[in-house]
């Protein structure tokens, strides 16, 4: 069964091949292009390095920014392995500052280092081309589903790191997510990742869960042919 979802973005036209991993349709798409039979496949990489900037949404009155360094490597079929180290900085907001002037506080995770190890699987992948000339892009792309374990390291554990914050110091977290990755020729790549995290332990009151949106710049290193 073959399905195509056609998304039109001026001036790009992405053609997504479903399901993965089948090269048949890639070949069809390639066959449809008038020229430049360049063909890039992330499965042939040995690994790629990543830089990322993200924002965490904890459903409270505090703000958290995330900066990460990562490595990702295909391990066969649609599977990848990934490891990431992050610095998360947490800040107060106007809301939390006002709350601090009251007897009330709210649970939040303070600034920390996060270390993630996990796997991913490519749900979708395919190839896109611009229709403009000269062509600015000739890209492959993939949608991964991700899962991993995250360890949090806190340099200190004060009672109230930010006014009105009731700090919650989770050590271990289950992180799941989706990642849309675009592979440009010549190793450069962009990604956008959404994560949904649930702690293994509980606090009172509990954060329950939180999510993270991360933009990623990656550089791939070719594997042996």
């Amino acid at each position, binding site marked *: 069964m073959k399905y195509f979802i056609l998304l039109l973005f001026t001036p790009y036209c992405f053609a997504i091949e479903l399901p993965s991993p089948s090269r048949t349709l890639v070949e069809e798409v390639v066959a449809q292009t008038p020229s430049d039979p360049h063909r890039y496949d992330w499965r042939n990489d040995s690994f790629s390095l990543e830089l990322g900037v993200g924002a965490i949404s904890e459903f409270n009155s505090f703000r958290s920014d995330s900066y990460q360094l990562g490595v990702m490597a295909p391990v066969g079929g649609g599977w990848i392995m990934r490891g990431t180290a992050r610095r998360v900085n947490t800040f107060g907001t106007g809301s939390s500052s006002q709350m601090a002037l009251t007897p009330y506080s*709210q*649970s939040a995770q303070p600034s920390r280092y996060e270390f993630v190890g996990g796997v991913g699987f490519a749900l979708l992948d395919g190839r896109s081309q611009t229709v403009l000339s000269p062509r600015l892009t000739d890209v492959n792309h993939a949608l991964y589903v991700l899962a991993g374990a995250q360890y949090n390291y806190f340099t200190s554990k004060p*009672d109230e790191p930010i*006014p*009105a914050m009731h700090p919650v110091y989770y050590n271990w977290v289950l992180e799941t997510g989706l990642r849309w990755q675009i592979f440009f020729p010549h190793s450069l790549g962009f990604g956008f990742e959404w994560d949904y995290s649930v702690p293994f332990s509980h606090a009172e*009151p509990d954060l329950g869960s939180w999510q993270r949106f991360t933009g990623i710049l990656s550089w791939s290193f070719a594997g042996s042919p």
Partner: protein
Amino acid sequence: MRLGLKIALLIAALLGLSACPKIPLRENRATFDLASSHWFELEKTQYVFFSISGLRTAQAKLTWPFAFEISGMGTPIPGLQAKADGFAALDLTKGVYQHHFVECGDGRICGSFSFHANSPIQQILVRFRYDAKSEMQEVASVPVATHPAGQGPDSQSALVYGVYNHDNSRLQMRVHDNFGTPDADQVLQYGMNRNFTVSGIQSVSLTTTDEVSSIQQNNGYYIFPAAICGSRVKSGKGETFTFGGHDGWTKTNYDPNEAPNDACFQAALLDQTGNVITSAPGMARKNPVLAGEPLTVQPPVKQTIDIPIIVSYCPDAPDGDTLTNPDFMRYQKFILGVPDKTPTDICFQTGQESQFRSAFAGLLDRKLNAAKTQSGSLNRDFFFRVIINTHNFYKKVRQFHQIMSGAIRAKISNEIVQQSPRLVGAFVYDSEPAPDVDIGGNVVWCPRDPDPNGTSDPSSPQINCTPMNAAGKVTLGPFNFRIPMGPFPTVDAFLKNFNEVGDRGEMNDPQLTVNAVHSGSSTITGGNGNSFYTFFDGQRLDFSPNERLKLCTDRDTDGLFNNMVFQYSDSSNGPGVMSLTDAQSAMLYPKGDTVGSMLVGLQWTNPFIGTFSYSIPVKGSVFTVIPISITGKTTQKLGDPVWSKPVWNLTPLMQKCVRNCEHPGFDESGVYQLTKFWNSDNVCTTPKTPEPGP
């Protein structure tokens, strides 16, 4: 995986996100844990103390924009401007004294205020605002205590007294904040600072009568107020000095050896601008001057000259060969260190009891006399080592045990009360248990009891060659051998091991050493006739006038004092031999002012101690102490290892006070024990005194 399923999972995840609940708020209400107000009529001043706790960390910072407000419930607070709701912002600069807020613990803010009031404001509220601009607040009702004017200490909010440094050369002024709530030592943390001026400081000597009168008058406050100093302060003379807070050092250096042992002064309480609020006399007492008291005693214990006596059933008598055992005889000699070739001194046989009775007594006399002659001028005491060799005999005839034990006891009883050299005791190594011999405390008879199981269980009393006392068996035995093939089994046990295992149980180098307390002209007999006291030559404690001594039983971990007695060197000063308790009382509270000179002595009942040491190849050295000296009345004393110490260093166990012994002082944590005088108990502390900075 089918795409439809994948998309369904994706949608489910996104739906899950939308279901995430917002994180609820936590409520952290703070509470006032102290709110207290005091009005002092003498000062015409009302004080307010308060503290609020349970604040979040960030809120419990002085930099946080919190606010405290106060209300007199309709009565204006002097110096403060009330708002429409009756509360006035607490402007601390308006206080009679200096005040500031204090971070006084986790999540806690403390504060205080003072205002002038001719009569107390009876209803006061204190309000805390989490934010000065918000309506979020906590309110506390403040109980008010009134302190009417009077002569007693309760009428003053600040009681000033003085203390000295370690050598009494510098004088420190201290303030006892007399509110009760909060405690005196916590008032500073409520952020109140008061200044005091001390003037007319005079060195004086107060008599004990003065002080006792002061204590009674002040109902336990002792020196507050120091009315006895009122007439001794000379205005315009002596140092004048101002300090703030709780304490301050005066500038004057005092001669530590000068005769006056107290100081009087006038102390004035000042408001923020330096005006005198109240003034009262105060006093200071010099610290007790402590010194070490050197005393080292060497218990007059000398090794005894041991006299071996070998007794056996007569081998030539009918059945003599079955009623003795040469192998076990050899073992007995080996254990007691008697040469193997030493001949048997005397033998006995059934039917010749009366002959044996006289012969045995004569043998003891001859042996002792010969030893005395031979020892010449060695001046050492004597000790019998008796070996009795029988086999299958004890159960037939017991009279011989009675004859031998009776003769040994009689001989020792005659000798023990004499001056050295004399016979002090005996160790009898019997072949079989002798439960019904009457041995007394100066004889160790081994084995002692019949073995109910017929075995040589090393933990059973019959193998533990313990002396008997009036209370019965001694469980802490001197010869409590707990090794396989113990060195002192019965002849049955010995033969069982010897025959079955071929093991003689001969450990390496067994040595029985016995020492005895030397008795001389300085030895006297105690009142009950059982105790003896030997006073050490030249060992005495000498006291100058007013000197006192503590025998620090709290430091006496070895129990040395338990064996010591004391006696006035001049018998006209008091009773004869004094126990530790009586001596301590005499040294702390002597009749008159002088203790005089005390002789130091040793108390003992059974005059000898023994040690038995040996080694076995596998287990290494074993050392057993035989504390069969001392009274023998309790198992503890029998086991007292103190007698193995050749020298007793008593210096660390005594604390001498040479001056000001009836004065209070500092404890080991530096707290001035105002109402506890040095001579009020016999606990020896090393005082931690304050010292002025450079």
